[in-house]
Protein backbone atom coordinates (compact mmCIF):
# COMPACT_ATOMS: atom_id res chain seq x y z
CA UNK A 1 0.00 0.00 0.00
CA UNK A 2 1.41 3.34 -0.95
CA UNK A 3 0.76 6.42 1.07
CA UNK A 4 -1.14 8.96 -0.98
CA UNK A 5 -0.41 12.64 -0.81
CA UNK A 6 -2.58 14.42 1.73
CA UNK A 7 -5.41 16.45 0.24
CA UNK A 8 -4.86 20.14 0.46
CA UNK A 9 -8.57 20.74 0.88
CA UNK A 10 -8.99 18.71 4.01
CA UNK A 11 -10.67 20.53 6.77
CA UNK A 12 -8.90 20.33 10.10
CA UNK A 13 -10.40 21.36 13.38
CA UNK A 14 -7.94 22.94 15.70
CA UNK A 15 -8.38 21.45 19.12
CA UNK A 16 -8.95 23.69 22.07
CA UNK A 17 -6.12 22.09 23.91
CA UNK A 18 -3.48 22.63 21.25
CA UNK A 19 -2.12 25.99 20.24
CA UNK A 20 -0.56 26.20 16.83
CA UNK A 21 0.34 29.88 16.82
CA UNK A 22 4.04 30.61 17.17
CA UNK A 23 3.97 31.26 20.89
CA UNK A 24 6.40 30.41 23.61
CA UNK A 25 4.04 28.22 25.60
CA UNK A 26 2.00 25.30 24.28
CA UNK A 27 -0.31 23.34 26.52
CA UNK A 28 -1.80 19.93 25.96
CA UNK A 29 -3.93 17.94 28.36
CA UNK A 30 -4.69 14.24 28.08
CA UNK A 31 -7.75 12.93 29.82
CA UNK A 32 -7.53 9.34 31.09
CA UNK A 33 -10.92 8.56 32.65
CA UNK A 34 -10.14 4.91 33.41
CA UNK A 35 -7.42 5.84 35.88
CA UNK A 36 -9.10 9.16 36.75
CA UNK A 37 -6.14 11.17 35.69
CA UNK A 38 -5.32 14.23 33.61
CA UNK A 39 -1.82 14.58 32.24
CA UNK A 40 -0.75 18.12 31.41
CA UNK A 41 2.07 18.71 28.95
CA UNK A 42 3.78 22.08 28.84
CA UNK A 43 5.99 22.76 25.84
CA UNK A 44 8.20 25.81 25.90
CA UNK A 45 9.49 26.57 22.45
CA UNK A 46 12.93 28.04 21.95
CA UNK A 47 12.68 31.77 22.19
CA UNK A 48 14.77 34.28 20.34
CA UNK A 49 15.01 36.15 23.62
CA UNK A 50 17.64 34.26 25.56
CA UNK A 51 16.45 35.77 28.86
CA UNK A 52 13.12 33.99 28.35
CA UNK A 53 14.83 30.66 27.74
CA UNK A 54 16.47 30.83 31.12
CA UNK A 55 13.31 31.65 33.01
CA UNK A 56 10.97 29.09 34.48
CA UNK A 57 7.26 29.78 34.00
CA UNK A 58 4.79 29.71 36.88
CA UNK A 59 1.94 27.21 36.86
CA UNK A 60 -1.31 28.33 38.36
CA UNK A 61 -4.32 26.08 38.92
CA UNK A 62 -7.54 28.07 38.86
CA UNK A 63 -9.83 28.38 41.88
CA UNK A 64 -12.38 26.05 40.26
CA UNK A 65 -9.58 23.56 39.51
CA UNK A 66 -10.85 23.34 35.94
CA UNK A 67 -8.19 25.44 34.22
CA UNK A 68 -4.46 25.94 34.36
CA UNK A 69 -2.52 29.05 33.43
CA UNK A 70 1.15 28.96 32.67
CA UNK A 71 2.90 32.34 32.65
CA UNK A 72 6.39 33.75 32.76
CA UNK A 73 7.33 36.02 35.62
CA UNK A 74 7.83 39.76 35.09
CA UNK A 75 8.86 41.38 32.85
CA UNK A 76 7.44 38.71 30.52
CA UNK A 77 4.08 38.34 32.26
CA UNK A 78 2.27 38.88 28.94
CA UNK A 79 3.66 35.55 27.73
CA UNK A 80 1.07 33.22 29.15
CA UNK A 81 -1.31 30.48 28.12
CA UNK A 82 -4.41 29.02 29.73
CA UNK A 83 -5.96 25.63 29.12
CA UNK A 84 -9.37 24.47 30.23
CA UNK A 85 -8.99 21.03 31.77
CA UNK A 86 -11.22 18.20 30.55
CA UNK A 87 -12.30 17.56 34.12
CA UNK A 88 -12.04 19.16 37.57
CA UNK A 89 -8.89 17.96 39.30
CA UNK A 90 -8.45 17.20 42.98
CA UNK A 91 -7.29 19.74 45.56
CA UNK A 92 -4.24 17.55 46.10
CA UNK A 93 -3.28 18.26 42.49
CA UNK A 94 -2.58 21.87 43.45
CA UNK A 95 0.05 20.92 45.98
CA UNK A 96 1.44 18.19 43.75
CA UNK A 97 1.75 20.65 40.90
CA UNK A 98 3.80 23.05 42.98
CA UNK A 99 5.97 20.31 44.36
CA UNK A 100 6.61 18.75 40.97
CA UNK A 101 7.39 22.11 39.47
CA UNK A 102 10.07 22.70 42.12
CA UNK A 103 11.61 19.31 41.34
CA UNK A 104 11.52 19.99 37.62
CA UNK A 105 13.05 23.36 38.17
CA UNK A 106 16.04 21.48 39.53
CA UNK A 107 16.06 19.22 36.48
CA UNK A 108 15.81 22.15 34.13
CA UNK A 109 13.25 20.47 31.92
CA UNK A 110 12.92 16.76 31.42
CA UNK A 111 12.18 16.82 27.75
CA UNK A 112 14.92 19.13 26.62
CA UNK A 113 15.74 19.05 22.93
CA UNK A 114 16.49 21.39 20.08
CA UNK A 115 12.90 22.62 19.96
CA UNK A 116 12.75 23.75 23.55
CA UNK A 117 11.70 22.31 26.88
CA UNK A 118 8.82 20.04 27.78
CA UNK A 119 7.34 19.19 31.15
CA UNK A 120 4.52 16.88 32.07
CA UNK A 121 2.39 16.70 35.22
CA UNK A 122 -0.13 14.14 36.36
CA UNK A 123 -3.18 15.24 38.28
CA UNK A 124 -5.91 13.16 39.87
CA UNK A 125 -9.48 13.92 38.87
CA UNK A 126 -11.59 15.27 41.72
CA UNK A 127 -13.55 12.58 43.59
CA UNK A 128 -16.78 14.52 43.13
CA UNK A 129 -16.52 14.42 39.34
CA UNK A 130 -18.91 11.93 37.83
CA UNK A 131 -17.29 10.54 34.73
CA UNK A 132 -19.36 9.71 31.72
CA UNK A 133 -20.42 6.11 31.90
CA UNK A 134 -21.35 3.81 29.08
CA UNK A 135 -22.01 5.66 25.92
CA UNK A 136 -25.27 5.52 24.07
CA UNK A 137 -25.03 3.12 21.15
CA UNK A 138 -24.38 4.91 17.87
CA UNK A 139 -23.77 8.20 19.68
CA UNK A 140 -21.03 8.83 17.14
CA UNK A 141 -23.50 9.09 14.27
CA UNK A 142 -23.68 12.81 13.56
CA UNK A 143 -26.88 12.89 11.58
CA UNK A 144 -30.19 11.23 12.18
CA UNK A 145 -33.56 11.93 10.69
CA UNK A 146 -34.32 14.01 13.76
CA UNK A 147 -31.56 16.48 12.82
CA UNK A 148 -33.16 17.20 9.47
CA UNK A 149 -36.00 19.52 8.61
CA UNK A 150 -38.47 19.65 5.77
CA UNK A 151 -36.28 22.20 4.02
CA UNK A 152 -32.86 20.64 4.65
CA UNK A 153 -30.64 20.63 1.59
CA UNK A 154 -27.69 18.41 0.70
CA UNK A 155 -24.74 19.67 -1.27
CA UNK A 156 -21.56 18.32 -2.82
CA UNK A 157 -18.66 18.66 -0.42
CA UNK A 158 -16.26 19.68 -3.20
CA UNK A 159 -18.13 22.24 -5.28
CA UNK A 160 -21.02 23.04 -2.94
CA UNK A 161 -23.47 22.37 -5.74
CA UNK A 162 -26.87 21.44 -4.43
CA UNK A 163 -27.71 17.77 -4.80
CA UNK A 164 -30.92 17.70 -2.84
CA UNK A 165 -32.67 21.02 -2.87
CA UNK A 166 -35.43 22.29 -0.67
CA UNK A 167 -38.74 21.28 -2.14
CA UNK A 168 -40.11 23.76 -4.67
CA UNK A 169 -41.37 26.98 -3.18
CA UNK A 170 -39.43 26.71 0.07
CA UNK A 171 -37.18 29.48 1.27
CA UNK A 172 -33.75 29.19 -0.28
CA UNK A 173 -31.90 29.27 3.02
CA UNK A 174 -32.92 28.42 6.53
CA UNK A 175 -32.72 32.02 7.70
CA UNK A 176 -35.65 31.98 10.00
CA UNK A 177 -38.25 31.28 7.34
CA UNK A 178 -39.45 28.26 9.21
CA UNK A 179 -43.02 27.95 8.18
CA UNK A 180 -41.87 28.10 4.57
CA UNK A 181 -43.95 29.21 1.71
CA UNK A 182 -43.99 25.73 0.20
CA UNK A 183 -46.84 25.90 -2.24
CA UNK A 184 -48.58 22.73 -1.24
CA UNK A 185 -45.32 20.76 -0.85
CA UNK A 186 -44.86 19.32 2.60
CA UNK A 187 -41.07 19.22 2.26
CA UNK A 188 -38.74 16.31 2.72
CA UNK A 189 -39.61 13.54 5.08
CA UNK A 190 -36.53 12.03 6.72
CA UNK A 191 -36.46 8.54 8.13
CA UNK A 192 -33.69 6.62 9.83
CA UNK A 193 -32.48 3.33 8.46
CA UNK A 194 -31.07 0.69 10.78
CA UNK A 195 -27.52 -0.62 10.56
CA UNK A 196 -26.32 -1.64 7.12
CA UNK A 197 -26.17 -5.24 8.22
CA UNK A 198 -29.71 -5.46 9.45
CA UNK A 199 -30.82 -7.81 6.71
CA UNK A 200 -28.12 -10.38 7.44
CA UNK A 201 -28.75 -10.09 11.15
CA UNK A 202 -32.35 -11.17 10.62
CA UNK A 203 -31.05 -14.70 10.14
CA UNK A 204 -29.86 -14.71 13.74
CA UNK A 205 -32.72 -12.87 15.33
CA UNK A 206 -35.70 -14.80 14.00
CA UNK A 207 -36.49 -18.47 14.02
CA UNK A 208 -38.52 -17.68 10.96
CA UNK A 209 -38.72 -14.47 9.07
CA UNK A 210 -41.96 -12.52 8.98
CA UNK A 211 -42.18 -12.46 5.18
CA UNK A 212 -40.31 -15.47 3.83
CA UNK A 213 -39.42 -15.86 0.19
CA UNK A 214 -41.36 -18.14 -2.00
CA UNK A 215 -40.28 -21.68 -1.43
CA UNK A 216 -38.85 -20.85 1.97
CA UNK A 217 -41.86 -22.03 3.89
CA UNK A 218 -41.09 -25.71 3.37
CA UNK A 219 -44.19 -26.87 5.15
CA UNK A 220 -43.54 -25.31 8.54
CA UNK A 221 -46.88 -24.74 10.21
CA UNK A 222 -45.89 -21.80 12.36
CA UNK A 223 -48.71 -19.56 13.38
CA UNK A 224 -47.25 -16.76 11.28
CA UNK A 225 -47.24 -18.59 8.01
CA UNK A 226 -50.78 -17.46 7.33
CA UNK A 227 -49.67 -13.88 7.49
CA UNK A 228 -46.72 -14.72 5.37
CA UNK A 229 -48.92 -16.27 2.73
CA UNK A 230 -51.10 -13.24 2.67
CA UNK A 231 -48.15 -10.94 2.22
CA UNK A 232 -46.79 -13.14 -0.53
CA UNK A 233 -49.66 -12.56 -2.90
CA UNK A 234 -48.62 -10.57 -5.93
CA UNK A 235 -51.29 -7.92 -5.22
CA UNK A 236 -49.51 -6.81 -2.07
CA UNK A 237 -46.72 -4.41 -3.08
CA UNK A 238 -45.47 -4.38 0.49
CA UNK A 239 -44.37 -7.97 0.35
CA UNK A 240 -41.20 -7.08 -1.48
CA UNK A 241 -40.50 -3.95 0.48
CA UNK A 242 -41.30 -5.31 3.89
CA UNK A 243 -39.64 -8.63 3.28
CA UNK A 244 -36.70 -9.34 5.48
CA UNK A 245 -33.54 -10.98 4.28
CA UNK A 246 -30.54 -9.97 2.23
CA UNK A 247 -32.37 -10.39 -1.08
CA UNK A 248 -34.84 -7.68 -0.22
CA UNK A 249 -34.09 -4.02 -0.55
CA UNK A 250 -35.10 -0.83 1.09
CA UNK A 251 -36.75 1.34 -1.52
CA UNK A 252 -36.71 5.10 -1.51
CA UNK A 253 -39.87 6.88 -2.51
CA UNK A 254 -39.97 10.38 -3.90
CA UNK A 255 -40.28 12.95 -1.15
CA UNK A 256 -38.74 10.71 1.50
CA UNK A 257 -35.05 10.60 2.29
CA UNK A 258 -33.77 7.61 4.21
CA UNK A 259 -30.87 8.39 6.51
CA UNK A 260 -28.37 5.59 6.77
CA UNK A 261 -25.34 5.64 9.05
CA UNK A 262 -23.07 6.78 6.24
CA UNK A 263 -25.32 7.78 3.37
CA UNK A 264 -28.68 9.15 2.35
CA UNK A 265 -30.92 6.93 0.28
CA UNK A 266 -32.99 9.07 -2.04
CA UNK A 267 -35.21 8.58 -5.01
CA UNK A 268 -33.37 9.50 -8.18
CA UNK A 269 -36.09 11.91 -9.30
CA UNK A 270 -35.51 14.06 -6.21
CA UNK A 271 -31.84 14.70 -6.93
CA UNK A 272 -30.14 17.42 -8.91
CA UNK A 273 -26.85 17.55 -10.75
CA UNK A 274 -25.79 13.96 -10.36
CA UNK A 275 -24.44 11.68 -13.01
CA UNK A 276 -24.61 7.93 -12.78
CA UNK A 277 -21.83 5.96 -14.35
CA UNK A 278 -22.71 2.43 -15.20
CA UNK A 279 -20.32 -0.44 -14.53
CA UNK A 280 -18.05 1.73 -12.46
CA UNK A 281 -16.81 0.99 -8.97
CA UNK A 282 -17.63 4.59 -8.14
CA UNK A 283 -20.96 4.96 -9.80
CA UNK A 284 -22.00 8.43 -8.74
CA UNK A 285 -20.55 11.71 -9.92
CA UNK A 286 -21.46 15.23 -9.04
CA UNK A 287 -22.21 17.19 -12.16
CA UNK A 288 -23.33 20.34 -10.48
CA UNK A 289 -23.86 22.49 -13.52
CA UNK A 290 -25.26 25.40 -11.59
CA UNK A 291 -22.09 26.11 -9.63
CA UNK A 292 -19.22 24.56 -11.48
CA UNK A 293 -19.72 22.77 -14.76
CA UNK A 294 -16.48 20.87 -14.28
CA UNK A 295 -16.97 19.56 -10.77
CA UNK A 296 -17.35 15.89 -11.60
CA UNK A 297 -16.10 14.92 -8.20
CA UNK A 298 -16.93 11.40 -7.36
CA UNK A 299 -19.43 10.83 -4.61
CA UNK A 300 -17.80 7.51 -4.30
CA UNK A 301 -19.92 4.88 -2.81
CA UNK A 302 -18.99 1.48 -1.54
CA UNK A 303 -22.56 0.76 -0.69
CA UNK A 304 -24.17 0.03 -4.02
CA UNK A 305 -25.30 -3.37 -2.74
CA UNK A 306 -28.65 -2.43 -1.35
CA UNK A 307 -29.75 -0.16 -4.13
CA UNK A 308 -32.79 -0.42 -6.28
CA UNK A 309 -32.87 0.86 -9.80
CA UNK A 310 -33.95 4.47 -9.50
CA UNK A 311 -32.59 4.99 -6.00
CA UNK A 312 -29.39 6.79 -5.19
CA UNK A 313 -27.34 6.32 -2.09
CA UNK A 314 -25.54 9.61 -1.60
CA UNK A 315 -22.69 9.00 0.81
CA UNK A 316 -22.08 11.58 3.43
CA UNK A 317 -19.38 12.95 1.20
CA UNK A 318 -22.40 14.83 0.05
CA UNK A 319 -22.74 17.44 2.72
CA UNK A 320 -25.74 18.86 4.45
CA UNK A 321 -26.26 22.49 3.70
CA UNK A 322 -25.35 24.95 6.45
CA UNK A 323 -24.26 22.03 8.56
CA UNK A 324 -22.54 22.94 11.80
CA UNK A 325 -20.79 19.58 11.86
CA UNK A 326 -17.35 19.63 10.24
CA UNK A 327 -16.65 17.11 7.50
CA UNK A 328 -13.99 15.46 9.64
CA UNK A 329 -16.79 14.24 11.92
CA UNK A 330 -18.29 12.50 8.91
CA UNK A 331 -15.01 10.76 8.10
CA UNK A 332 -14.51 9.53 11.64
CA UNK A 333 -18.13 8.49 11.85
CA UNK A 334 -17.68 6.52 8.64
CA UNK A 335 -14.70 4.67 10.10
CA UNK A 336 -16.37 3.94 13.40
CA UNK A 337 -19.46 2.67 11.70
CA UNK A 338 -17.36 0.46 9.43
CA UNK A 339 -15.52 -0.95 12.44
CA UNK A 340 -18.79 -1.58 14.27
CA UNK A 341 -20.21 -3.36 11.23
CA UNK A 342 -17.08 -5.46 10.85
CA UNK A 343 -17.23 -6.40 14.52
CA UNK A 344 -20.90 -7.28 14.26
CA UNK A 345 -20.21 -9.64 11.39
CA UNK A 346 -17.57 -11.38 13.46
CA UNK A 347 -19.88 -11.67 16.40
CA UNK A 348 -17.84 -9.50 18.72
CA UNK A 349 -18.01 -5.94 19.86
CA UNK A 350 -15.34 -3.33 20.25
CA UNK A 351 -15.71 -0.45 22.64
CA UNK A 352 -15.69 2.56 20.38
Amino acid at each position, binding site marked *: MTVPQPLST*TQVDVQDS*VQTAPQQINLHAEYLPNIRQVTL*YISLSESSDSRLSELQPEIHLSESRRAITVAYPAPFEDVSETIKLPSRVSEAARAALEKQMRVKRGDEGTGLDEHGREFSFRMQIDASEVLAGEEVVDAF*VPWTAGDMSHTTKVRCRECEGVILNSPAGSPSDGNGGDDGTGAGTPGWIWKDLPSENWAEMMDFWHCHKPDPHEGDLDGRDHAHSQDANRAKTPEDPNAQVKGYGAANRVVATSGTVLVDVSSFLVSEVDCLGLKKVRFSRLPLLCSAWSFNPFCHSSLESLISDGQQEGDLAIPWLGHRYNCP*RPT*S*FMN*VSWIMNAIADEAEQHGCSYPL
Partner: protein
Amino acid sequence: MKVFFQYINDTANLLGSGSGTATPLSLEELEFPEKIFNAVVSTLEERNGMLPIRTRIFREWKVGILNRFERGRNEK
Protein backbone atom coordinates in the same frame (compact mmCIF):
# COMPACT_ATOMS: atom_id res chain seq x y z
CA MET B 1 -9.92 10.37 20.53
CA LYS B 2 -6.33 9.24 20.50
CA VAL B 3 -5.40 7.08 17.54
CA PHE B 4 -2.21 5.05 17.13
CA PHE B 5 -1.24 4.54 13.51
CA GLN B 6 1.54 3.20 11.34
CA TYR B 7 2.17 2.74 7.63
CA ILE B 8 2.50 -0.82 6.40
CA ASN B 9 3.78 -1.57 2.92
CA ASP B 10 3.21 -5.28 2.99
CA THR B 11 -0.37 -5.65 4.17
CA ALA B 12 -0.79 -9.07 2.58
CA ASN B 13 1.95 -10.48 4.76
CA LEU B 14 0.63 -8.77 7.87
CA LEU B 15 -2.88 -10.09 7.38
CA GLY B 16 -1.54 -13.54 6.70
CA SER B 17 -3.44 -13.87 3.46
CA GLY B 18 -0.54 -15.78 1.91
CA SER B 19 -1.15 -19.45 1.44
CA GLY B 20 -0.82 -21.62 4.46
CA THR B 21 -0.47 -18.86 7.02
CA ALA B 22 -3.02 -18.36 9.73
CA THR B 23 -4.83 -15.03 9.89
CA PRO B 24 -3.98 -13.20 13.09
CA LEU B 25 -7.17 -12.94 15.08
CA SER B 26 -6.37 -9.56 16.56
CA LEU B 27 -6.24 -7.85 13.18
CA GLU B 28 -9.10 -6.66 11.07
CA GLU B 29 -9.02 -5.30 7.58
CA LEU B 30 -11.08 -2.36 6.42
CA GLU B 31 -11.21 -0.90 2.94
CA PHE B 32 -11.50 2.88 2.86
CA PRO B 33 -12.92 5.06 0.13
CA GLU B 34 -9.94 6.98 -1.21
CA LYS B 35 -11.19 10.40 -0.14
CA ILE B 36 -11.80 9.35 3.42
CA PHE B 37 -8.43 7.61 3.58
CA ASN B 38 -6.59 10.69 2.33
CA ALA B 39 -8.48 13.05 4.59
CA VAL B 40 -7.95 10.89 7.66
CA VAL B 41 -4.23 10.37 6.97
CA SER B 42 -3.61 14.08 6.56
CA THR B 43 -5.63 14.87 9.68
CA LEU B 44 -3.68 12.31 11.69
CA GLU B 45 -0.34 13.67 10.47
CA GLU B 46 -1.35 17.23 11.15
CA ARG B 47 -2.52 16.43 14.67
CA ASN B 48 0.64 14.40 15.26
CA GLY B 49 2.64 17.55 14.59
CA MET B 50 0.53 19.47 17.12
CA LEU B 51 1.22 17.07 19.98
CA PRO B 52 4.03 17.58 22.49
CA ILE B 53 7.17 16.11 20.97
CA ARG B 54 7.52 13.37 23.55
CA THR B 55 4.01 12.07 22.91
CA ARG B 56 4.16 11.94 19.11
CA ILE B 57 5.48 8.39 19.01
CA PHE B 58 4.58 5.47 21.23
CA ARG B 59 6.82 2.49 20.58
CA GLU B 60 6.35 1.59 16.91
CA TRP B 61 3.21 3.72 16.59
CA LYS B 62 2.68 7.30 15.62
CA VAL B 63 0.06 9.08 17.68
CA GLY B 64 -2.72 11.23 16.27
CA ILE B 65 -6.01 12.68 17.39
CA LEU B 66 -9.36 12.48 15.62
CA ASN B 67 -12.40 14.47 16.61
CA ARG B 68 -15.41 12.26 17.00
CA PHE B 69 -18.94 13.40 17.18
CA GLU B 70 -20.64 12.78 20.49
CA ARG B 71 -24.35 13.31 20.61
CA GLY B 72 -25.13 15.74 23.38
CA ARG B 73 -21.60 17.07 23.72
CA ASN B 74 -20.95 18.32 20.20
CA GLU B 75 -24.45 19.54 19.65
CA LYS B 76 -25.33 23.14 20.05
